[in-house]
């Protein structure tokens, strides 16, 4: 809500500059800024009086004026049609600059010397009237800097009015806050209303269908008005808040709305059928062309103003074209009503039509100001448009206003704002009943001490403050009125011992490990495209959550998998010529399970491109399945997950031969695999992307954060290698499992160091090189002891896998 300083000064004395005032209101009310007039580099333009005007002897359209600017007087040649003797105008002296950086110098026009130039609003950069020179009005002093003068008068503050403050949607309401913040009194608008017969009651009939929608409706009639231009003071006030002047009648309704925060509407009385107004809900499919020219189709959620023939306005939102005030209007029906905030809000939202009026009604306008507001508008129509105000008004409905009284404990105020004597002597007196009353009364609250309890103030809330309904609201009024900076900050103390969220800590722990393993964490959108889940390998039976109003129509679902977002990151980074991608995300996926909505934490990741960081000595090897599997195994080791096993896994997007289900302690935790060529093509990613997905819930129950100490080995270990030639179909995991089973207690470690299949072996065979390590905790093993253990294993393996040893 904008408010010009000049306008505010109609109601309250202001000695502060616009920026000082904005700062003060920011401290006591809400964020307030200044909007300064853009002078656009105009300088050296002074106020001058036109002394005489004569026709240019050689040019019909030019005048020769003698101008006086206090410090001097000279002749200026001017082409404007509106030059008049006695007018105060803006004189650009030689050496001055006007808009567009144009420098003014002495000139000769049609043989006559001109000492500078008389300029228009446009040339000053302060308005859009280019038809003539600017009339500065009588208030400016001769020789005064014009930009300075206009700038001061055009100073405007812009108040960020919160949704709970209808009163501040009017300049008067802001003036009340200014008065309270600066310790000044508030002058209410004063006007005299002269009424003449006949009675309004005989001229218009008003009915209300449902007094919930419209608890009160006031109609007044003003006859014999003349539609024309508004006077300068009115135009100027509207201008200062960015409202364009249209004609005196429309300007008056806008002015009154901006002054009180109560919208009023002017209908052309003669265009109202049967001179009968009814307030009712629209019937489904009913139509109305609103003032903005839109043909609107309505339904039961819309509240209408109708006449004998049908709808003439959307109540509280916008008038209709058929009853609009025009240049020929001579009788006006003025509406001043209270419409239900939520009805107006729903109606305006449904039509996507937020008007100045609807924004005020939906906050709840002052239910007790309507008679005054209607009177104010009538008085102005009489003064400015020569109308005759008809006697009385037609007022239907008694309103729904219930006065609010709040019992406020002064002790409670102190406990909230000044607990335990936190206010020392240096910071002023403690809040007592008198101070609390004073803070409230400057804002229009009335207070009196409860005769039965001196701690209690009975506070009457003014009708324009529907936001204040209980003592917490009053405490805020007191806090902001005395200033938040006066509340003493207390050092936080600890009285609670925070509890850990173990599942969350597990996610943090896993994230740390993934980063240690050289992956970048990513965070992707929770939204995904229709069908993206299936394309990413999610089971078709999983039901996604659908958004009713997605911001991006292409992404209407909540993700059922992290995979679509992950592959998109792979795609964009590969397209950005990255040579290697190593990323993971820990995030939520969503699914519907009947009525319930399930949210589940998942980790997904991808590897692609160079296996080693590019360097002069590195191989150019690309990552493969085993890099990703090794990564997960490393994670498993860090998490001290007992066993992590891989088995066959079938997925819609993974390569059948290069994907594995991962299990920990026998239950599945996720999978890893190479994205199949077909899927890679469909997702627009390069070949050879390895992805993995792990269920964080399943994993976090299986891990141990802390390690256990065991005695370090005191005796040396002995190593034995063996190269086993087996059928290519024998899985390495089976061999290792067999060794684990039959290894005996001396076997402490094993690892595969080589796998070979090729020319040096018979077809269908492969050789698996395994390193075994033997150690005893009690003594140094002899070669014989080691050989015995080793041979047992070899024997077992050769039998089990019909294997031979390779030399």
């Amino acid at each position, binding site marked *: 809500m904008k408010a010009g300083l000049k306008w505010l000064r109609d109601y309250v004395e202001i000695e502060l500059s616009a920026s000082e005032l904005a700062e003060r209101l920011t401290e006591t009310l809400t*964020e307030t800024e200044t909007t300064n007039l853009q002078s656009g580099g105009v300088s050296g333009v002074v106020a001058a009086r036109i002394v005489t005007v004569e026709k240019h002897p050689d040019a019909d359209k030019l005048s020769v004026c003698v101008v006086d600017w206090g410090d001097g007087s000279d002749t200026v040649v001017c082409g404007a049609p509106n030059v008049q003797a006695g007018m105060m105008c803006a004189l650009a002296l030689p050496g001055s600059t006007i808009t567009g950086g144009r420098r003014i110098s002495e000139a000769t026009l049609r043989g006559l010397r001109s000492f500078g130039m008389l300029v228009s609003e446009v040339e000053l950069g302060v308005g859009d009237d280019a038809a003539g020179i600017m009339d500065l009005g009588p208030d400016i002093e001769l020789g005064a800097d014009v930009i300075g003068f206009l700038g001061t008068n055009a100073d405007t503050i812009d108040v960020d009015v919160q949704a709970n403050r209808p009163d501040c949607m009017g300049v008067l309401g802001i003036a009340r806050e200014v008065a309270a913040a600066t310790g000044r009194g508030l002058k209410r608008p004063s006007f005299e209303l002269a009424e003449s017969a006949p009675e309004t009651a005989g001229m218009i009939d008003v009915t209300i269908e449902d007094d919930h929608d419209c608890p009160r409706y006031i109609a007044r009639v003003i006859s014999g008005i003349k539609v024309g231009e508004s006077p300068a003071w009115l135009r100027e006030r509207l201008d200062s808040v960015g409202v364009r002047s249209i004609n005196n009648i429309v300007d008056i309704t806008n002015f009154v709305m901006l002054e009180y925060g109560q919208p009023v509407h002017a209908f052309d009385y003669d265009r109202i059928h049967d001179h009968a107004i009814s307030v009712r809900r629209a019937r489904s499919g009913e139509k109305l062309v609103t003032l903005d020219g839109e043909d609107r189709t309505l339904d039961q959620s819309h509240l209408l103003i109708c006449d004998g023939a049908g709808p003439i306005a959307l109540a509280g939102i916008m008038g209709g074209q058929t009853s609009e005030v025009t240049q020929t209007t001579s009788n006006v029906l003025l509406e001043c009503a209270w419409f239900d*905030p*939520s009805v107006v809000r729903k109606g305006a939202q449904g039509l996507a039509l937020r008007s100045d009026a609807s924004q005020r009604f939906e906050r709840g306008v002052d239910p007790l100001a309507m008679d005054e507001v209607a009177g104010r508008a009538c008085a102005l129509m009489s003064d400015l448009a020569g109308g005759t105000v008809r006697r009385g008004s037609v007022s239907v409905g008694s309103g729904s206003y219930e006065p609010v009284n709040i019992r406020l404990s002064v002790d409670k105020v102190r*406990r909230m704002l000044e607990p335990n004597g936190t206010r020392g002597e240096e910071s002023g007196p403690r809040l007592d009943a008198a101070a609390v009353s004073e803070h409230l009364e400057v804002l229009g609250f009335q207070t009196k001490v409860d005769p039965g309890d001196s701690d209690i103030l009975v506070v009457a809330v003014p009708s324009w403050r529907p936001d204040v309904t209980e003592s917490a609201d009053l*405490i805020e009024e007191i806090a902001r009125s005395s200033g938040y900076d006066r509340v003493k900050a207390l050092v936080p103390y600890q009285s609670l011992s925070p509890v850990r969220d173990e599942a969350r800590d597990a996610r943090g722990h896993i994230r740390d490990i993934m*980063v240690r393993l050289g992956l970048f964490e990513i965070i992707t959108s929770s939204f995904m495209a229709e069908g993206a889940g299936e394309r990413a390998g999610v089971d078709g039976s999983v039901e996604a959550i659908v958004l009713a*109003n997605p911001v991006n129509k292409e992404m209407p679902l909540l993700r059922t998998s992290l995979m679509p977002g992950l592959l998109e990151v792979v795609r964009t980074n590969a397209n950005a010529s990255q040579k290697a991608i*190593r990323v993971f995300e820990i995030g*939520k996926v969503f699914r519907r399970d009947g009525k319930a909505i399930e949210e589940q934490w998942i980790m997904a990741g991808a590897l692609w491109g160079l296996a080693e960081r590019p360097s002069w000595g590195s191989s150019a090897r690309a990552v493969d399945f085993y890099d990703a599997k090794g990564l997960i195994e490393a994670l498993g080791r860090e998490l001290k997950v007992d066993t992590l096993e891989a088995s066959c896994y079938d997925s819609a997007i993974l390569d059948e031969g290069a994907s594995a289900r991962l299990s920990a302690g026998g239950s599945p935790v996720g999978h890893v695999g190479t994205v199949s060529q077909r899927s890679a093509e469909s997702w627009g990613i390069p070949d050879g992307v390895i992805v993995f997905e792990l269920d964080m819930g399943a994993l976090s129950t299986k891990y141990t954060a802390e390690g256990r100490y065991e005695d370090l080995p005191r005796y040396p270990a002995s190593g034995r290698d063996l190269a086993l030639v087996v059928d290519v179909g024998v899985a390495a995991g089976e061999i290792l499992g067999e060794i684990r089973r039959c290894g005996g207690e001396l076997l402490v470690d094993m690892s595969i160091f080589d796998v070979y299949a090729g020319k040096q072996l018979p077809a269908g065979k492969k050789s698996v090189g395994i390193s075994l390590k033997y150690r005893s905790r009690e003594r140094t093993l002899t070669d014989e002891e080691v050989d015995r253990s080793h041979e047992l294993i070899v024997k077992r393996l050769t039998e089990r896998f019909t294997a031979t040893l390779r030399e």
Partner: protein
Amino acid sequence: MIDRLEKLRGEARKQFESAANEKELEDVRVLFLGRKSELNLAARGLGKLPPDERRLVGKAVNQIKNELAAFLGEAKERLAGGGGGPGLDLTLPGRSPWVGRKHPITRTLEQLEDIFKRLGFEVALGPHVEDDFHNFEALNFPKDHPARDAHDTFYVEGGGLLRTHTSPVQIRVMQTRKPPIRIIAPGRVFRNETPDASHGSEFFQLEGLYVDKNVSFGELKGVLIKFLRELYGDDVGVRLRPGFFPFTEPSAEVDVECRICHGKGCSVCKDTGWVELLGAGMVDPRVFRAVGYDPDEVSGYAFGLGVDRICMMMTGVDDIRLFLENDLRFLRQL
């Protein structure tokens, strides 16, 4: 004999240096250092020499053997792409391992959580798909009230909505626990607006709540100032001014002195010298009633902040959309 060995060294050096690949180098090695090489033969023949000569020649053989081994090493290094010449080329870049990094939002969250944990807050989480009661009603956003305007909401078909702030976690915690409560609720939130440089349709917030007997506005102020000093240093200017949130009363907007211009005024703070960082206030009694607490018995404060915004201020990121794009060039910078 010694002369012969000297000559051998010259010859070997030339050949080691000119070996063009591993294969050639291996041939050269076999020729000069292999079992049947002249040097090895000379070594084996040492025993047949008279003691004086044996000592002399033996020493020379050993020395030359060492030198040839050094030639071999250098040649190997040269073929591996190394600097050639003597020693290491210390100016060659080393070989680095992959180093990963957490997302900047995660790191900012960790930083914030760390501070609040030291102040005795525990972490609480809630669902992303919420209902109207927890996201709005219980937080004193009546239906059809303009206070909802600031929360453009994603609705879920079949009922429910995506939480527009982390405040519903307050409600869930209060519904299931009795005071005292001191929590922070970090997490992802959703607003149905077209993303631009300063607005995302998904972003991150951190909510704080403390409920106990006799919690005062001064304690709220104290905890916020403490937090901001931990984050920005003891000299940071902090300002509380009136604001409006349906679920707090009194409500405050919390500004910190602009970190760019230190309060002098610049484009980041729009010449005000202040940057808005948090919303805060005393829990509205209507919220307490909605969760079955008695506002005459308990009081409390709540605050909330935008994690992305704090991260942007710390890192200079000027487009919030970059956080969910995950361009590795971007992630590597932060």
